[in-house]
């Protein structure tokens, strides 16, 4: 009887310890994870940013992907506009 109680207590404490160790795994927080709102970064005057400041470096790291993505979309947009302009030009020439 005593052995049973002891085994149960050990199993319970091991289970509780395992749960507490998992409780703050960063992956647990991913359900509510926000994405960085980098719109504030885009409106900043980049020439006035202190790139030696770790806060600024960290923000750049967070927003790098976002900004690259936007730049890529913008250049795609320009390319599309140019393409459309070329097509319009060709069409009007044909007319």
């Amino acid at each position, binding site marked *: 009887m005593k052995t049973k109680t002891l085994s149960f207590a050990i199993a319970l404490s091991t289970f509780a310890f395992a749960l*507490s160790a998992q409780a*703050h795994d*960063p992956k647990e927080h*991913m359900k509510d994870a926000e994405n960085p*709102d980098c719109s504030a970064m885009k409106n900043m005057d980049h020439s006035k940013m202190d790139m030696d400041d*770790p806060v600024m470096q*960290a923000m750049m790291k967070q927003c790098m992907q976002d900004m690259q993505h936007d730049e890529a979309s913008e250049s795609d947009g320009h390319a599309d506009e140019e393409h459309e302009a070329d097509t319009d030009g060709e069409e009007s020439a044909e007319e």
Partner: protein
Amino acid sequence: MTARKIFSFGKYLLIAAGVTVLGGLAFLYSGLYPMGADVPHNTLTIWALETLRERSIVRAASDIEVPEDLGSSDHLLKGGADYNDMCAGCHLKPGKMQSDFTLGLYPAPPNLALHGDEHDHDEGQNGQVRRFWIIKHGIKASGMPAWGPGHDDERIWNMVAFLDRLPTLSPEQYQILTARGETNVDDN
């Protein structure tokens, strides 16, 4: 004659000590002390508890060494996300001055988005060591848990690094630095 005087003095001292102990025990068992978190401690209790806390932390944290590159952007990013998930509810964030926890907890948790002199806590290297110890071990009967059992030292130092810069952040900077996003899970 002198020996008799000493004996007599000792006897009165013993009686006084006995009365003090019995009086203390009677007070403890009487239930007269208000334990509700909505009634502040008296000045003497505040002084005793704060002195006990501060002296204990200074002694226990005296051997802790601060990592050299604590101010790096990597530490800030990793610590920021954890602070937002684990601490901001009680210790607040830029642009937020109170929460249900700050209103209801006693002692009220310090607003760590303010500079140290605004909430009466030490900054600099002593402050870093103190914060590391408090995050790791918690503080008894204050609502501050010990995060050490589920978090390694590196992760706790990351939070200390973030705390150093927290009072200088705007709400927009705070949002960017603390967002886990989809890309940060492996780093954090």
